């Protein structure tokens, strides 16, 4: 017999049709430490309060239905055990996912999530130059498949979308899942729309990613969206050059280091945003420079800068996406 422990659980409850504001309801259950949070919630629903609303299905981290906030982390409830949460927080607090409107209790409206997904055209676009062989397989080499072996693992649970601070601050940002999926089509050798995809996504939000890696931390399937977004940025620069503020900043930063090896902060503002941008930042720059006069000076040139420049020559034409 596995020993049970007392598990205090606070659950977010809200029915927009009846409640003026959301509230937390506290429950206490006796459960073995390895009990999944989902099991605890279903126990509450079957034994204490049958009105608790939540989404779930497989209970095996496959369907992606039960993503929610568990002690502020975006997680699958079926994959998160109560024991470690008690150790860290002394209780389990359950909220609905962020960045999506609450329909009731722990159930959110996933409409925006799927609309953002549709924006990236999530299917292969046939390449007229290389038509798919009819009735036959269209084989890829292991190397080609290796480039995107992580992304098909995605179960579209929305945990990354919920964890994303860029999505929270800028609703036009498509979110990590859509961008990870976009990467998957961009590097698929059977897809004929690679260039259009890379051109369209740049003004469409690619450069809003903060690369905070909160998506990668929250992903239950280790899809690593933040790394795929990084790869997309490099591919986009290769395809189109530095045309957006974001790509100008990345390429400008790289060029910035070429001369001295350390960042010239003021020069970078000009590289990203041109003279107009520099003028726009001037009042703030001057305000800062009063206390931080280094801002107006060039950095020192590091010793061995010729080595750095040689690395640029040797690796200038590399395309990463590794």
């Amino acid at each position, binding site marked *: 017999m596995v020993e049970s422990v007392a598990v205090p659980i606070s659950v977010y409850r809200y029915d927009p049709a009846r409640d003026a504001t959301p509230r937390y309801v506290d429950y206490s259950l006796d459960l073995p430490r390895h009990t999944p949070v989902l099991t605890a919630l279903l126990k509450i629903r079957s034994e204490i309060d049958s009105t608790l609303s939540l989404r779930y299905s497989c209970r095996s981290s496959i369907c992606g239905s039960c993503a929610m906030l568990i002690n502020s982390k975006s997680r699958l409830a079926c994959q998160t055990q109560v024991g470690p949460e008690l150790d860290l927080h002394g209780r389990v607090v359950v909220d609905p996912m962020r960045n999506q409107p609450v329909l009731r209790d722990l159930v959110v409206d996933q409409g925006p999530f799927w609309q953002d997904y549709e924006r990236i055209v999530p299917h292969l676009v046939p390449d007229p130059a290389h038509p798919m062989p009819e009735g036959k397989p269209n084989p890829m080499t292991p190397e080609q498949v290796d480039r995107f072996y992580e992304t098909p693992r995605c179960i579209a649970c929305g945990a990354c979308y919920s964890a994303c601070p860029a999505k929270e601050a800028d609703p036009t940002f498509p979110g990590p899942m859509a961008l990870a999926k976009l990467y998957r089509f961009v590097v698929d050798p059977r897809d004929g729309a690679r260039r259009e995809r890379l051109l369209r996504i740049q003004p469409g939000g690619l450069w809003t990613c903060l690369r905070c890696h909160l998506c990668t931390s929250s992903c239950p399937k280790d899809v690593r969206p933040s790394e795929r977004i990084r790869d997309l940025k490099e591919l986009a620069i290769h395809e189109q050059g530095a045309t957006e503020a974001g790509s100008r900043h990345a390429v400008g930063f790289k060029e910035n280091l070429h001369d001295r090896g350390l960042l010239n902060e003021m020069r970078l503002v000009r590289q990203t945003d041109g003279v107009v941008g520099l003028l726009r930042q001037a009042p703030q720059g001057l305000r800062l420079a009063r206390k931080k006069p280094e801002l107006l000076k060039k950095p020192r040139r590091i*010793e061995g800068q010729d*080595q750095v420049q040689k690395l640029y020559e040797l690796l200038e034409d590399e395309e990463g996406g590794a």
Partner: protein
Amino acid sequence: MRLAYYPGCVAQESGKELDMATRWVAKKLGIELVDFPNFSCCGSGFVDEANLVLNVALNARNLSFAEKAGLDLLTVCSTCQGMLSLANKKLELPAIRTRVDTALAQLGLEYHGKTKVKHMLQVLTESFPPERLRPLVVRPLTGLKVGAFYGCHLLRPADELGWENAEDPHSFEDLLKALGAEPVMYRGRVMCCGFPILFVKEGVANQIAGRQVEDAAAHGADAMATPCPLCHISLDSFQNKAAKAVGHKLDMPVFHLPQLVGLALGATPDELGLPRHMVDTDSALRRIGTVAVPG
């Protein structure tokens, strides 16, 4: 203890107060910092977006100097920590390893992946646990409520940084307690400061920074503290703009991590470069019985 000191660009330039505080604290704790005038910028998470392999090579070059000297490397910036750790991780991939090794060989350099990269927070946690640090505290930060702000790249991706729970970390709060301060727990402590898009989508970046400052304030913080000078730019240097973006007045002193350690170990505000901050730190200093002399 001897460590190769990797200050990063900002601590040598507009965030010089971080370098001042780091050197003061290291000296006090008997950590010998070895300078390497040939260290370049880490790429800051931007160069890799333009050319990943080049960025790994730049950092392999940096790491090779410490390796040759037989030293582990000390960072004082979450982003430097992240980028140098990323290089070590990426060099485990044979395709990248070969390209980088070949390029380094042409410079007469080699790197075998042995340099351990440690942020000051990790060094303090591992080598100066509370029982060792507490007796050195001459000015306990008693009464000061501090919201630790970790900075993304010190924590994530967890398998690259790999020394602390990325979403429920506690090393910074443990350190604050050892210094006598009262840590404030709030969601924003593991969130992004907005810096990576500060010059790309400024309004969004300011709003993100403002939310974290508001969050810390709402949980009772008198001050925030960060192990990352880029977070410091977002939270301190641009706090005026963050306040506009969230539509509230903000007045939150933001310390660099070694500044708080220095204050507790007896440094003067001037020695730690506190007058260089954009948001006045006096309100916090008054709580611990010291006030900055105007610089």
